[in-house]
């Protein structure tokens, strides 16, 4: 049985709050059944608005949202059958954990014994069995979050929405919760739409990531593709670390292009968003793709002066002044011999032309 490729579908959705500014512009997004899709973007990029439209708390100004083929714009939130985990958990503080979980079942008139069974199952899924009679206020942040997840899943919704659910947790807890949510998703196969501004979270958990900026999806692809092959400079900059060079294309041929930088040097790059000579471009290079003292003959090999050395435990970050970019970052694994990494030294840096992606200028 193949999953419905368009289980959740945003079709040409626009959203404006004040009639002047579009918060979401012409959004088209298909989410497969059982998929874990993350909406990632800076604050104000429209990702939460999209989630709220899907949940039914906001109505699209234009366009339509489909759930399993049915338009849902005119269905009120409580009839959509979509589970939701909120940023601040939104547990009902006057109800016990059991009552919180039983709430969606009780409003659906589920019989008592079935309710008990489902609550038990949901609680053991988030490893909180035995906490039924606690009040939310007596739980730690992580436990509250797990209760919120269990509550969103207990009535077997077809889609679960999560709005920055881990934002309030500390770093360690956040990481373990990421795995926990991912495992829950894998074991029950529910469709999850997850909103976050934390790229690490998005990369860890998702099947696919939709990078939002300025009300638009910039790129929708799997985490590895997103990191390795960003399609524009916003995505390249937003996901992971990124070294950039501004320049002008001087030649495009054989799947390679020459870019003349402001410093006058020419580098060989991979033309992603440039087509012809004379175009302005930003060349993006991941720090770990640049190699110190390259032995083999690389297409790009340049000398730079070390400006700063920052020790990071497992690796050392080196800031270079390279080809006019004073913020060029290198990551040097600490296991290797440290060579001449000292402030003021000159070192030679090389990289493959296919790793230097010539993207759109800003």
């Amino acid at each position, binding site marked *: 049985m193949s999953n419905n490729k368009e289980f959740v579908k945003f079709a040409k959705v626009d959203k404006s709050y004040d009639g002047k500014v579009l918060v979401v512009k012409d959004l088209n997004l298909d989410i497969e059944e059982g998929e874990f899709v993350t909406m990632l973007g800076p604050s104000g990029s429209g990702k939460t608005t999209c989630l709220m439209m899907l949940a039914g708390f906001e109505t699209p100004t234009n366009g339509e949202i489909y759930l399993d083929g049915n338009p849902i714009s005119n269905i009120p939130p*409580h009839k959509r059958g979509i*589970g939701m985990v909120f940023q601040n958990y939104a547990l009902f503080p006057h109800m016990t954990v059991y009552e919180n979980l039983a709430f969606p079942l009780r409003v659906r008139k589920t019989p008592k014994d079935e309710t008990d069974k489902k609550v038990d199952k949901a609680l053991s899924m988030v490893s909180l069995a035995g906490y039924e009679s606690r009040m939310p206020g007596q739980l730690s942040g992580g436990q509250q979050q797990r209760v919120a997840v269990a509550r969103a899943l207990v009535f077997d919704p077809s889609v679960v929405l999560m709005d920055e659910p881990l934002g309030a947790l500390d770093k360690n807890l956040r990481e373990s919760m990421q795995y926990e949510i991912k495992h829950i998703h894998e074991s029950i196969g529910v469709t999850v739409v997850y909103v976050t501004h934390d790229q690490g979270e998005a990369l860890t958990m998702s099947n696919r990531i939709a990078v939002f900026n300025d009300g638009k999806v910039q790129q929708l692809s799997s985490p590895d593709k997103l990191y390795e092959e960003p399609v524009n400079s916003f995505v390249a900059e937003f996901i992971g670390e990124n070294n950039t060079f501004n320049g002008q294309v001087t030649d495009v041929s054989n799947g390679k292009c020459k870019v003349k930088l402001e410093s006058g040097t020419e580098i060989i790059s991979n033309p992603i968003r440039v087509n012809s000579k004379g175009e302005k471009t930003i060349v993006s290079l991941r720090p770990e793709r640049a190699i110190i003292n390259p032995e083999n003959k690389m297409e790009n090999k340049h000398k730079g002066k070390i400006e700063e050395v920052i020790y990071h435990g497992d690796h050392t970050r080196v800031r270079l002044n390279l080809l006019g970019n004073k913020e060029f970052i290198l990551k040097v694994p600490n296991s290797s011999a440290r060579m001449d990494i000292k402030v003021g030294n000159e070192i030679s840096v090389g990289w493959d032309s296919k790793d230097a992606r010539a993207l759109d200028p800003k």
Partner: protein
Amino acid sequence: MSSETQKILTTDGIPLEVSLKKAEKKNKIKAFLLVAPLLLFIIITYIFPIGEMFTRSIDDRMVTNMLPKTFKAMETWDGKELPPEEVFAAFLSDYRALAEKKEHGKLGQRLNKEKNGFNTILKKLWRKMEKFEDGNAKEQIMAIHKRFRDVKYWQAIKRTAPPYTMGKYLKGMDMFFDEDGKVVQVEEDRRIHRILWLRTLEIAVVVTILCFLMGYPIAHLLATLPMKYSNLLMICVLLPFWTSLLVRTASWMILLQQQGIVNDFFVMIGLVADDNRPEMMYNKTGTYIAMTQILLPFMVLPLYSVMKTISPSLMRAGKSLGGTPFVAFWKVYFPLTIPGIGAGCLLVFILAIGYYITPALVGGASGTLISNQIAYHMKETLDWSFASAMGLMLLTGVLVVYWIYNKLVGIDNIKLG
């Protein structure tokens, strides 16, 4: 570690506890001095007057002081048959002393309240006692009037012996001690106080309910509107609060009177005939309207402060989990506002039950409260002990309400802002 409790010493060798006390002492004194003015103020202006009110309300020392010897002699009297000779002699002696001070008339009036017909026979006694021979007081007094031979009159005197009485409290509930010292009710058509108590309760309850019904949506709106609108609305709620109570009440009088603005409007839109304007003032309606408006902020503010803390995502969670808007409101939002409802209702009810100016001005005869009666006795009849008794009964009532509230909602759950 040894099993004995070891005293922990500081580095100087002083026991830690001593050292701690010493270190904290200064702070404690400072803290107390800061609170002291308020404490003193409360004692002088609150606790002391209430104590004074209480003693005044039960004070009945007049007769006690007038007939000291009589009451001394009566101590051994069982009160069933006519008292022995010593009592008569003591009474005659006391009465003579009073007559010299020309205070015998007061005694007559006071005892007449206790037992009808006392004044007459005492006046007779006053006229005839000049000719009394020494000794044998019992026979001479009994010869003056047959009522002196009636044990009930002597019992009445004995009843006034204690320096205190609960009579004023009974009067506040339309009851009194009858001639046999039993508590009985006054005739049905004279039970004005009980009507007033019930009306006070009724008006306080109705005003509280009205305030709740009107205040809840306003508070909700205040808590959920965006800042720029909610500030404006807040000012609208508070503006009457900043206006003098008297001014507000007077403006209600202008609005509600028969030739007033509201009536004019009703006539204009044809709701009522010009010659059939409803009376909206000098009755309960006026009291309800004016008091609700005046007490509304006391309901809105606690509610608002509670609602402000309720995250809007809770309602959303309720809806996303499948609750209809009503279910989400009733099961999620409403229970969370109960501390605010409790605080607002308690505040409004307590204020309403003792309200004075507004009912006095717009209430008329059917819209006045017990507080107006208390004021009447303070200013007109000058029966301060009765006014004190009723004031204390009101205070007790409020404390009872407070106690019930504590049992139901818990005073720790209260949120006043």
